[in-house]
């Protein structure tokens, strides 16, 4: 696929030209213009959704690194660009975009999962810098444990907790992304949070997992 930075740089005027995005501009009319081939309209959509940072953040929460998150965000926008003509507007563009991002992020996550299990402890040590105080190290380790415990949750639980709690989407929005009922979203949310609590308690009782793969710790539950 074509990605920003992969090929020769676009002409400077493409990067500096302004497409007027009026705050109250109706998204449906922008989508209609984009469907009709208005390049400026599509760019407005990309700018609106990338500016919200949701797209990148959601992808990042799943894959855990910014480069992969940016790749996923680009792939999602590309998919929207290719399929925009068939977009009927039954759900919002945002819902459609988030659905693509989650699907791509989960697929990518599965691909890298085994590799991550093997390399995580090495990365943890190599990321430690001499300038960090003990308190900062402890805090970083605590955050890493939470993030990794979250990533070790079953797929749907992780997805729902991420979207609902960390990214602040409503139960209704999450239910539209997964095409399920709001009750199902709540069920996965509650199960995910309980599962997470057990994992975090295990870490607290068992001490640091820094010296071994966290994935290994979690599979002991």
């Amino acid at each position, binding site marked *: 696929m*074509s*990605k*920003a*930075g*992969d*090929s020769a*740089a*676009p*002409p400077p005027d*493409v*990067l500096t030209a302004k497409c007027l995005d009026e705050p109250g501009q109706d998204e449906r009319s922008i989508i209609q213009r984009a469907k009709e081939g208005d*390049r400026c309209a*599509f*760019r407005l959509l*990309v*700018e609106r959704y*990338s*500016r919200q*940072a949701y797209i*990148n*953040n959601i992808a*990042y*929460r799943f894959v855990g690194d*910014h480069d992969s*998150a*940016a790749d996923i*965000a*680009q792939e999602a*926008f*590309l998919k929207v*660009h290719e399929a925009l003509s068939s977009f009927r507007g039954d759900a919002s563009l945002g819902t459609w975009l988030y659905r693509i991002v989650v699907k791509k992020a989960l697929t990518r996550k599965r691909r890298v999962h085994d590799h991550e299990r093997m390399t995580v402890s090495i990365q943890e040590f190599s990321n430690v810098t001499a300038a960090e105080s003990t308190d900062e190290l402890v805090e970083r380790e*605590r*955050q890493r444990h*939470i*993030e990794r415990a*979250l990533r070790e949750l079953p797929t749907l639980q992780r997805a729902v*907790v991420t979207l609902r*709690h*960390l990214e602040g989407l409503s139960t209704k929005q999450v239910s539209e992304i997964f095409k399920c009922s709001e009750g199902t979203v*709540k069920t996965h*949310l*509650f199960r995910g*949070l*309980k599962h*997470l*609590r057990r994992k*975090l308690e295990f870490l607290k009782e068992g001490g640091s997992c820094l010296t071994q793969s966290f994935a290994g710790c979690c599979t002991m539950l």
Partner: protein
Amino acid sequence: MSHAIVRWLLYDVVKKKLDEKVRREVERHLRTCASCSKELRELEKPLAELSTLPRPSAFRDEVFWRAFVASIER
């Protein structure tokens, strides 16, 4: 208020998203129901932990996305 309704609302209790009237009813139920109170405690801890995570900081700037759009339009 029934157990099922209270449990449906527990996430919103923790997030303080309930309106005053509903919140008071839920709290009245929680004062006398050990199992729903336990459910609430089980949600509070992980939600508090998750809330300490920082927002992802580095996302691509406007120029990056303009270059991306230009690349797919060529």
